[in-house]
């Protein structure tokens, strides 16, 4: 399902609209929490106002728990979400410099914007400073360049770095946050007893604290794997599907759809690219079996309107592809019964029916005609765009004449 825009569920036209909307929400909350005041922000370093810590930690933990839950329930594909890569040295050095910037300036970029919005002149100067700083960085980039790309470790995760499971890290982070809230509330009380920050005290926090810890404990047992499919199927359901066995498509149906310009199927040749290059059914897309799980084919295999039909020489490899595809959550997948070998044998061994059923007679004549069309090479291959979107795969469809 998610993330909605990168997965095309919500169109790209909405991208900037959401950016604006999210920004507005972001700015509103920041300002309402009092982050538009440099003195309030600096308070976290001097003990008289720990708002920054409370907001920051709560926000980070809330979003993290949300990501965890969404990932587990299959609502978001984390492999598509941006995870900021770790460049060890510039992260540390940059962080230290930003620490200086924070203490001296009293803002960070996001908060300074909200402060500018309500008229803080020091914030405007701060913001101008940021722009100047970046210009300076850009002009002096040759000086910074080497540092800036040093220590590249890739988009690694904190729990891997620490050698624990994601669930344990989540629990520990929640616990640390709760302890920090308690401790800083006490410090604030001592340093600033008249601050009137009474909203951070009180027994009414007992329920949320217990709940937070409970969530943390549950997360310990929750796996954090990044799903690659559309939404991995439930195991018991998959087992039922496997046993039920009604995912086969007869070769007549495929032949019929090939020879009429009406093409409500997508044919997938799951053999190697070498075999597919030698011969393949007109209009097929070649997805070698080993690549079935690749993200590249997600759009193609997610097709809901047209049947997606896997085939190979026999049925074995198509069957394997079908098994994996169904597990990954693609639901509209079928297997060509008998494979290519069966397909052609039906056409060649077309026996005149001895019963007088209308259907058998029709099938016989249809197959005769199909064989003739293959023999005469009458199948034209027509290129066709499925939709006008640029990021849709190009599907080549067959055109036949009767």
């Amino acid at each position: 399902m998610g993330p909605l825009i990168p997965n095309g569920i919500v169109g790209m036209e909405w991208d900037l609209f959401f950016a604006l909307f999210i920004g507005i929400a972001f700015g509103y909350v920041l300002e309402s929490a009092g982050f538009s005041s440099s003195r309030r922000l600096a308070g976290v370093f001097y003990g008289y106002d720990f708002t920054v810590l409370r907001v920051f930690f709560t926000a980070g933990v809330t979003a993290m728990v949300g990501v965890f839950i969404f990932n587990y329930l299959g609502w978001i594909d984390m492999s598509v979400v941006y995870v900021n890569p770790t460049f060890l040295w510039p992260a540390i050095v940059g962080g230290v410099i930003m620490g200086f910037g924070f203490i001296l300036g009293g803002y960070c970029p996001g908060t300074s914007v909200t402060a500018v919005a309500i008229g803080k002149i020091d914030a405007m100067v701060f913001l101008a400073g940021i722009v100047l700083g970046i210009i300076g960085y850009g002009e002096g980039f040759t000086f910074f360049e080497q540092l800036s790309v040093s220590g590249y470790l890739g988009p690694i995760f904190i729990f891997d770095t620490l050698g624990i499971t994601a669930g344990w890290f989540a629990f520990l982070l929640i616990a640390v946050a709760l302890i920090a809230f308690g401790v800083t509330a006490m410090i604030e009380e001592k340093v600033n007893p008249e601050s009137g920050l009474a909203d951070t005290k009180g027994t009414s926090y007992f329920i949320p604290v217990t709940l937070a810890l409970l969530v943390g404990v549950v997360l310990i047992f929750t796996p954090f794997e990044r799903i690659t499919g559309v939404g991995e199927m439930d195991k018991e359901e998959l087992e039922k599907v496997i046993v039920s066995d009604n995912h086969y498509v007869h070769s007549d149906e495929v032949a019929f759809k090939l020879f009429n310009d009406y093409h409500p199927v997508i044919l997938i040749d799951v053999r190697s690219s070498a075999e597919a290059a030698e011969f393949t059914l007109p209009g097929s897309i070649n997805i070698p079996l080993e690549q079935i799980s690749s993200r590249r084919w997600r759009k193609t295999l997610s097709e809901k309107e047209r049947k997606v039909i896997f085939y190979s020489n026999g049925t074995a490899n198509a069957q394997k592809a079908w098994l994996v595809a169904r597990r990954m959550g693609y639901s509209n997948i079928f297997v060509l019964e008998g494979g290519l070998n069966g397909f052609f044998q039906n056409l060649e061994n077309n026996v005149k029916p001895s019963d007088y059923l209308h259907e058998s007679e029709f099938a016989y004549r249809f197959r005769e005609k199909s064989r003739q069309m293959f023999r005469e090479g009458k199948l034209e291959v027509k290129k066709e765009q499925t939709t006008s979107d640029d990021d849709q795969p190009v599907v080549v469809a067959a055109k036949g004449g009767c």
Partner: protein
Amino acid sequence: MKKNVFAIVVSVFIGILLLSMIGKKLLTSNYPVSVTQQLEIMTSSEISYSLYDLAKALKINDPDVLLVDIRTEEEYAQGHLPNAINIPIELLFHKDNAEIISGRESLTKVLYGNSEAQAIKANSLLILNGHNKFKILNGGYQYANQFVVATPTPSFFHYSDEKMKYYYPRLMPAGSSSNYSATKEEVKVEVMAPRGGC
């Protein structure tokens, strides 16, 4: 008053999330192998048990090879491979068969059915429940019985469902096969690359 409402709303929200998570956990079981692992196992060469291997094993009456017929009891009764035992697909995880399925690790356990595809189905169910060591006979009962047991035909021993390829020229005019090559178009990657930054 405001504080209490806040606490209650947050609690309810979190509670519902918790319940849905727990509910899902209770109703589903986790897969023992990932998709990538499953695909790797299913496409590895070790999972194949050829008719040649079968012929060899039958010839010396190999005690280390166990043939498992996954078809129905009636089909098994009508004819099965020598020394094969019958475990219909629906009964793969029946407690009576647990000893064979989970145990006897030193044996080479080979599944066969009416077709290789049917055996693949049974094998996938086993893999999904943590049993990765079963092999699949290349070919179904009919082929194995005819070409290995009844009339041993060595030229057929390396048959497999996928290795056999239809001789296309029989059906099509000479030189026309190139009309039907797979689409060479680069299928554009449809998913946006992750973007982010400061």
